């Protein structure tokens, strides 16, 4: 849609020399059954670790999660379990426990989602691994300590207790959790960072490993920090939006929805000029946020009506050319064919078809979906050989 005048900045030359995966040689045993655990080990795999998932005999719960593709495979399982190998073990059976112990003896990192009581029942406490180099990361809804550690929980209850649900949605309707598996993705990414930091510490401190306790609730509370402090400074909790208009998010335009976020004076001036609302553009009082908030009834409907005649692409192009922050609501079909993402090579080809690509680009250490099929079942032995 938008092309800048100047050439894009070239990528630093060092990318050409990219050969080493950041986590090559790191072995990860993932005994978790949660999305947060699965995303954590997916990131470890994507940056080069050899990840083995230990699935319960009935399979990882994500394998049963709808929707399914035409071959009957769960989309969620394809996404969250990709790039790893897998073995099904019943840890309560002695023979399987022996095989598990053989894998664990080779592991640098173990990822677990068991609550304290479940961990004890299975004998998966840190001491039982008897390996001072091991990094054992517990990723649970509410943490390994505290009053809620044993409470039944899922991503919905984490969204409720963290404050996030209270923020999403309309004031007149019920609160909304973040979409999809956002709790698991934020927590998995934070746990990945915490594990890498533990590996750095191990590398610098005589190969000493340790346990990490990371809770989905703590991570989502951290991510809600601005609203939590704002409520206290102002003496009233941050409410959900009163109405759907440009101050709250996307509004209807000719071919879909569009967000126009006015955070600076020139955004207002330039946007109103583009929309042909010259009296609003020229009257400087409208440039301050507090004035707009106090007189919203005088402009909201006019701006909405003016926007409704534009297509998303035309409006985005015009505003981007004036460096006004704005964004069309894009569907996955549009993102799949988006020329910016195509030029950056975001979408990734694998033997399993096209996948969304890397969350960030590192010039020296590649992100990679390897050649073997996602969550390929591991034959007898062979891990880390």
């Amino acid at each position: 849609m938008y092309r800048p005048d100047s050439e894009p900045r070239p990528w630093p030359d060092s990318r050409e020399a990219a050969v080493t995966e950041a986590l090559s040689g790191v072995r990860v045993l993932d005994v978790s059954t949660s999305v947060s655990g699965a995303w954590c080990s997916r990131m470890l795999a994507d940056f080069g670790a050899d990840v083995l998932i230990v699935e319960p005999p009935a399979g990882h719960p994500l394998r049963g999660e709808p929707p399914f593709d035409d071959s009957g495979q769960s989309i969620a399982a394809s996404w969250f379990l990709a790039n790893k190998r897998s073995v099904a073990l019943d840890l309560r059976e002695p023979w399987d426990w022996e095989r598990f112990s053989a894998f664990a003896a080779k592991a640098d990192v173990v990822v677990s989602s068991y609550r304290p009581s479940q961990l004890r029942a299975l004998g998966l406490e840190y001491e039982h691994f008897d390996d001072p180099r091991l990094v054992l990361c517990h990723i649970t809804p509410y943490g390994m300590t505290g009053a809620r550690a044993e409470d039944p929980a899922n991503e919905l209850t984490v969204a409720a207790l963290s404050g996030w649900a209270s923020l999403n949605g309309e004031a007149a309707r019920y609160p909304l959790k973040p979409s999809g598996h956002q709790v698991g993705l934020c927590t998995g990414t934070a746990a990945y960072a915490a594990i890498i930091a533990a590996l750095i510490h191990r590398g610098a401190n005589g190969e000493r490993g340790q346990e990490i306790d990371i809770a989905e609730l703590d991570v989502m509370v951290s991510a809600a920090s601005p609203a939590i402090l704002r409520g206290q400074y102002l003496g009233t909790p941050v409410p959900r939006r009163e109405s759907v208009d440009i101050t709250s998010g996307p509004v209807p335009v000719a071919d879909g929805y569009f967000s126009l976020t006015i955070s600076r004076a020139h955004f207002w001036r330039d946007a109103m000029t583009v929309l042909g609302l010259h009296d609003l553009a020229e009257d400087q009082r409208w440039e301050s946020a507090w004035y707009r908030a106090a007189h919203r009834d005088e402009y909201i409907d006019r701006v909405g009506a003016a926007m409704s005649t534009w297509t998303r692409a035309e409006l985005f192009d015009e505003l981007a050319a004036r460096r006004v922050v704005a964004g069309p609501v894009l569907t996955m079909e549009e993102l799949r064919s988006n020329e910016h993402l195509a030029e950056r090579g975001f979408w990734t080809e694998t033997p399993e078809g096209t996948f969304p690509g890397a969350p960030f680009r590192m010039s020296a250490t590649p992100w990679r979906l390897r050649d073997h099929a996602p969550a390929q079942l591991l034959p007898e032995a062979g891990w880390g050989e």
Partner: protein
Amino acid sequence: MSGPLAGMRGIVLTQAWAGTYCTELLAFLGADVIQIEVLKRPDAWRGSYDSPITGRLKDLPTAEHSWNCNFLYNSVNLNKRCITLDLQKPEGAAIFMQLLPSADFVAENFSPRVLGNLGIDYEAMCAIKPDIILCSLSAYGHTGPWSNVPGIGGTIEPTSGMTALLGYPEGPPMNSGQMYPDAVAGFNGCAAIVTALLHRQRTGEGQYIDLSMQEANLVFAGDAALEYVRTGRQRPRTGNRHPAYAPHGIYPCDGIEQWIAIACETEEQWHALQQVLGHPPGLRRVQFATNSARKTNEDELDVAMAAATTSFNRDELIRRLLAERVVGAPVHDGLEVADDPALRERGTIVKLTHVEAGTWHQPGIPWYYSVLANPQIRPAPLLGEHSAEVLAEFLGVGPETYGGLVAAGVSGMGPPAGEGVQP
């Protein structure tokens, strides 16, 4: 210092939320994070120099400067030191380059052209410090046709595919209540930088990281993206529903803004839920008899659930549901999160005193290590609070030289000399 990154240092040019949250998380891991802020145009999350002090802070005698009393800035900059430099002045850029050899990593979230214009891009940094790690967080990344399109959380949410997924069933697409894409970028930026730090420890090699907020957020909608690729279907907006289980929703309780989240993942939980609710006839219907029947008739189920919960006291209902092992929780607003006794006990919420803004309860460090103590939590720094300290520590700048830098508008703790607005 403690935490796994103790002994590592970031000299960072982060602002607003995505960048500052990324570097706050690194400080929470124990890194010494020195944030350089621009005196002439303060961080948008500090507000402008003429912003008023609002809310409960208006009557607080210590609250002297609005730019030190903004809840936005003060919520995402814990455990950092803050120095000010005018990087557009040659002395300012020179001081940055003199500090650089003391840094392990640099992070920034300016528009893509800014570092180059200031003469401190990755190549220039490598000339001074060959193994430096630089992470750029930007709206659309540093390459590609949209690289110079400006963006913030509220516009990245729609352009990353996130907004199309959030909303009530059959309702329009919605943005989150709080610029969620910034938090996503912050977590990913932290993950990227620790990955680079590990690689440097193993090989001695630094690197450049290009983080596009659009891509990081699209990855967080990756299962919906993969669904489109595999099936050609755009995932519908489903409110609070789960793809497999029902009920799975947020329902009203007695009182204003009293909501409860309830999910039944097993038939045992469904039966326990009905028992706790007193077997309401509205739920004892054949179309709700099995999970697959409840999924098929979820619209009616949610109406019946709301009718069944609406007269209950929220906290009493939660207590009884948890006793029966039903998945449930109260919907807490931000004030209730800050007041949550279990979160305070665990250390999720900590009491912090900021020298100007006073004492409040804020989210702390979201992880615990068994061998290492977490760093002690410190409140967000005042603008330029550590300028004199940092310049003395790393460059041996004495009080007289520092005074000269303040007089020249290169550094300082408030509006630049001669250009300022009285608070």
